[in-house]
Structure formats: C-alpha cells, structure tokens
C-alpha cells in the first residue's frame, strides 16, 4: 500500500503530538495527583443517613489527615444537605458526597469539583479553597421534575 510522502510527514507529526499530549495528561494524573474523582468506596443507598460520615452532613474538622476538613454532602431528589455551608479561606478540604435515590451531579461552578453521585457509591475530591466568594453547587445530571431547582452554596470566607 502506497503512502504519499507528505501524508507520512503529516501522520508522524500528528502522532508525535499525540504521544506528547497523552504523556502530559498521564504525568499530571499519576505523578502530580490530578486524577479525576474515582473513589471506590461503596455504601448501602437505603442506609446513607445512618452511616459515617453521612450521619453528619456539613463541614467537619479532622485531625491527622492530609486535609483539614471534610465537607460532607447528602444528595436526594431535589436537594443537597447541607443547603448552604461556610468554608474558611485557604482550607484544604475533602469533599465527600453520595446520593440516597437516583443519580445526581455535583458541580461546584467555577471550580474543578465536578463529579457524578451514584446510588451505592461515595464520591470524593480533595481541593483547596483559595479564593473567597460564593460558589454555587448545581446538579448537572438529570434527576427528575425538580432537577433545575437542585442546588447548594459554598461560601468561602476569611
């Protein structure tokens, strides 16, 4: 099979760019720790309220961990618990969330916190809130009649 010389150059250039690109996102994910949220913990979706840490939704200070706070959310059609929460500026926070019924989204607008909440699974993402202000949490996976009303708010305060 014949391949034109210019096409060979084009493909070699393209494939090399692809290798560089995949290396960059691979190093970012596995060496710098920027993996997408992929928590493997499971939970009984009908007993969420009785289980740790979901028996205490909201911001909880923790000791002896790589993060300062755990910010716990329980989602259900069509709300998050808590509906509003204050987080101190500069705090390193592990966001932990799950759902009691259908699949929900959990997107903190204006940040990189964006994860699916699926019944039976815990979703986690660790981040530092280093800019003060209000951050709207929206459900970005269709969950029913009130999907567009489902939200919460994180206030990052000094």
């Amino acid at each position, binding site marked *: *099979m*014949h*391949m*034109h010389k*210019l*096409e060979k150059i*084009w493909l070699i250039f*393209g*494939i090399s760019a*692809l290798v560089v*690109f*995949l290396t960059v*996102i691979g190093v*970012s*994910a*596995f060496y710098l720790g920027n*993996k*997408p*949220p*992929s*928590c*493997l*913990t*499971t*939970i009984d*979706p009908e007993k969420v309220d009785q289980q740790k840490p979901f028996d205490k939704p909201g911001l909880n200070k923790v000791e002896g961990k790589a993060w300062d706070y755990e910010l716990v959310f329980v989602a259900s*059609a*069509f709300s998050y618990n808590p509906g509003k929460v204050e987080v101190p500026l500069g705090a390193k926070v592990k966001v932990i969330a799950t759902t009691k*019924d*259908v*699949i929900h989204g959990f*997107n*903190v*607008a*204006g940040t*990189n*916190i*964006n*994860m*699916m909440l*699926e*019944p*039976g*699974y815990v979703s986690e993402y660790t981040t530092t809130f280093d800019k003060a202000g*209000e951050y*709207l949490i*929206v*459900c*970005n*996976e*269709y*969950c*029913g*009649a*009130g*999907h*567009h*009303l489902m*939200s919460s*708010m994180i206030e990052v305060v000094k």
Partner: protein
Amino acid sequence: MANETVAKVKVDPRDAKLSMAHFFVAFSALALGGLMGLLQTLVRSGKWELPWGIDYYQVLTVHGVLLGLVLTTFFIMGFQYAAVSRTTGGHSNAARRLGWIGFWIMLIGTLMAATMILLKEASVLYTFYAPLKAHWIFYLGLTFVVVGSWIDGAAQIMTYAKWRKNNPGQPSPLLSFMAVINTVMWIVATLGVAATVLFQLLPWSLGLVDTVDVLVSRTLFWYFGHPLVYFWLLPAYMCWYAIIPKIIGGKIFSDSLARLSFILFLLFSIPVGFHHQLTEPGIDPAWKFLQVILTFMVVIPSLMTAFSLFATFERYGRSKGATGLFGWFRVLPWNDARFTVPFIGMAAFIPAGAGGIINASNQMDQVVHNTIWITGHFHLTLATSVVLTFFGISYWLIPHLTGRKLTKAMNKLAIIQAWVWFIGMTFMSGAMHFEGLLGGPRRSAFSTYGGAKQAAEWIPYQVAQAVGGSILFLGIILVLIIFVNLAFFAPKGEEEFPVAEAEDNAEKAPMVFENWKLWLGITAALILFAYTIPFIDIIQNAPPGSKGFQTWNKW
C-alpha cells in the same frame, strides 16, 4: 465489466422504495424533534413557558430520542442500503425482504417508545439512566429498534457477501465496504445496550427483580454510547471520502487509505466508553486512563481523513489551473449544494473535534463534564457536521430514488439552508460552550438557582441559545420544504448517484482489508483487554442494588 457498471448506475427501484421508507421516517423525526429543540431553547431563555401541562423534560426526551436515535438510525440505514445497492448491482429478493422486516420492527419499536414518552411514562431522556425507571414498554420499544437495525443491517452484509462470492480475489466496492464496516461496528456496539436493556432494565421494570446494578448498567450503556457517535459519523465520512470527489470532478486520493481509516475506526471506537464515565465513582483511575489512550487512537484515522479530503480538493483545484498556496480553494464548486452543504459540515468538524479532545482528556473533563458545553459539542459534531452532510446527501439521493431532479431553485435554497444552519448553530452552540465553561449545567429547565450570582451570568447565554435555536428551526423548515419538493414535486428526470473513483496511479486495495476474521478478532481482543478486568471489579465490588424511582411529572 465496464459496460455492466454503467448499466447498473441506478439504484434498483425496489431498493429505492425501501430507502425512501427510511427517509420518510427520518425526516418526520427531524420535523417533530426539531420543534422540540426550539421549545427547549425558548423555555431556557426564561422568557416563555410551555402550555397545557407539557413538561420540559418530556420535551427533552422527545428531542433526544427523535433526533439522536430515530433520525440518525433511519437515515443511516436508508443511505447505506442504497449505497450498497448502487455499488454492488442491487440487493437480492431475500436481502430486500430482510431489509423491510428490519424497517418495520424499528418503526414499531419507535412507536412503542414514543407512546410511552407522550403518556409521561418515560421522561428519562434518551440515555435512560437507571435507577430512573420508565415503563417496560419503553424499554421493549428500544429493544425493537435495536433488533430491527440488526436485521436491516444484515441485508447490507448479505449483499456484500454475495458480491464477494461472485467476485473472488477482488476488493469490494469502496462504499459497500464502508457501509459494512459501519454496520458491523453498530452490531458489536449495540450488544452492550441490548445486554443492559434485556438482562437488567426490562426484568426490573416488569417487576421480576427488585433492584438494578446502576454502574453495570451505565458501563454497558457507554460501551455502546461512544461507538454510537461514530456510527453517526462514518456515513458522513463515506460521503466525504467516496462521493464528494466525484461531485467536484476529482478523484479519491487513495482507496486503500480510506479503507484503512475505516478499519481503525472499527477497532478504536468501542473499547473507550470510560471516557464518558471519567468523573464517576467505582471505576479505577488507571483503567479510565487506559481507555483515554485508546480513545485518542482515533486521532490517527481522523488525521488521515483530513489529509485525504484536502489532498483531493487541492489536486482538483490545481488540475483546473489554480496557482498559489490556496488558489485551489476558490475554484471549488461553491454553487453546487451537493458539495457546499457537506463542506460546511466538514469545516464545523475542526472546532468540534478540538472540543472532543478536551472532553476526553481524563482530568480536563472535570471542567466541562455534564455542563452545557457538552451539549454545545455534540450540536457541532452530530447536529452540524453529520446532519449537514446527511442533508447534502439527500439533495441528490432523494431525487435519484424518486426519479426526479434537483432544480436550480432548490439547489440555491439548499445552500441558503446550510448558511442559515451555520449562523444559527454559531449562536446556539457557541453560547452553550461559553456557558458551560462558567459551570452552567446541561439538561436543565430555566432556573435562577435561588438568585445565585453565578447563575445570573448564565442567562444571557441562554437567551443567545434561544436566538440560535429559532434560526435553526427556520433551517429545519427550509430543509423540509426541499425534502417534500424532491420527494413529490420536483420535475421528473435523472439525478446522478455520484460514486468517485480512485486516482489512476492508486493500486488495488490489499485483500487483507476484507479479512473479517482478522479485524473482528482484533476488535474483540481490544474490547476484552479494555473491559474485562474493570468490569469484573465493578461486579465483584458492587454495592446493594437500587430500586426504581419515577421522579418526573406525570399527567
């Protein structure tokens, strides 16, 4: 042989009838689904509300099912059936009967699903994620659509196999080969969605089992969901590779490379579904990244395609005496809708492909996942590149099948239609992309989110989407006028079914491309490699199952 080819350049009228049956369903779906799209953008602008208790999410379900599943599947099957007929010399009676059976089963399935959606028994959107539980008739209807498409596709495979048997040692006609690749990919891919519907969702919605494993269902769905988009795209590539060169008066750059790129799409479209599940719990990040790498392998055939198309254009232009670096661009037949309409689609694929690279980029997906950026993305890929190419195909295929002519007036209207589409989509998809970067969610009715400041910033973009949506709806009216004209009113005559030839110096395609045992074997091996271990993990570490929920508004 040469005379025989000339004698058979028309699609057999009996095959034409079946193709047209597909197109009537496809364009009806376009009319109704397009209207639903308009309603959505108007609702989300916040300036208008749906009357008579019609629900936004019901409208959204109709839009997605009709345009994402019905329009595409019926158009593609109708087009491929005609392309195989045209390039092999026609279907046998047995293949034609099979095609009709497939068509009717798909249509019955569509009507079953549609009825349940209209009764508000299935406002679950076209992705029907469990544990939202629709009426069992909805799932059974979808099963009929898939099974019908298998039977419909089997007609193409049968005719291809017969041609191969009658022409031993010869590479099959390029368009037939491409149609069969796409059909085979579709069959392999739909096994996933068939598995979740038949073994999980149907028994669960019938009440035979109480719970469903949500992550298994989603993983099976996305095993199907990504090749689905290539199933939409490859017929457009068939037109770009093997039909457009003839329309402009040029040649196919390389027949062999065209076949190779289609084989690469078959191999790398399927073992990649995790890139739709990047932000999901329960899947190991190493396996997600592995599928991200496999996802990006489709960059290679995409680069080959871009090269071939522009090489064809440039060579044609230079043969017409064009000079300078870009002189060939000006001599392309811009007054011919059969070329210009798909060309606008092709151009849209440049930003559309760039957006796709962002979406699939592992951690970068967190910025855009499930924001309305994604909706903007697939309105460039599917609703511009693919759909404009489908329109461009219709403008010669429908009159070819109905024995009519594309008149000068309709040709002009078709070009205007494409520009209207382009302008409407620039507004709508552009605004969706920008709103998505600010965090605006997809699949949501109008909301101020309790007066949140960030949500207020999204509203101007939603107004722009309504403007774009209204312009696009005008585009749909225009295309329907052209369709009805070409089907019923255009003057009788002969419209060519253009099939391009490869350049004279291009040698015969290697027969290894027709070795299905080899390519299906590699396809299966890649799927097993990418899915076996994570899928076993998902099943072994499964949480208690979910019971069903119906959280949408009922009548």
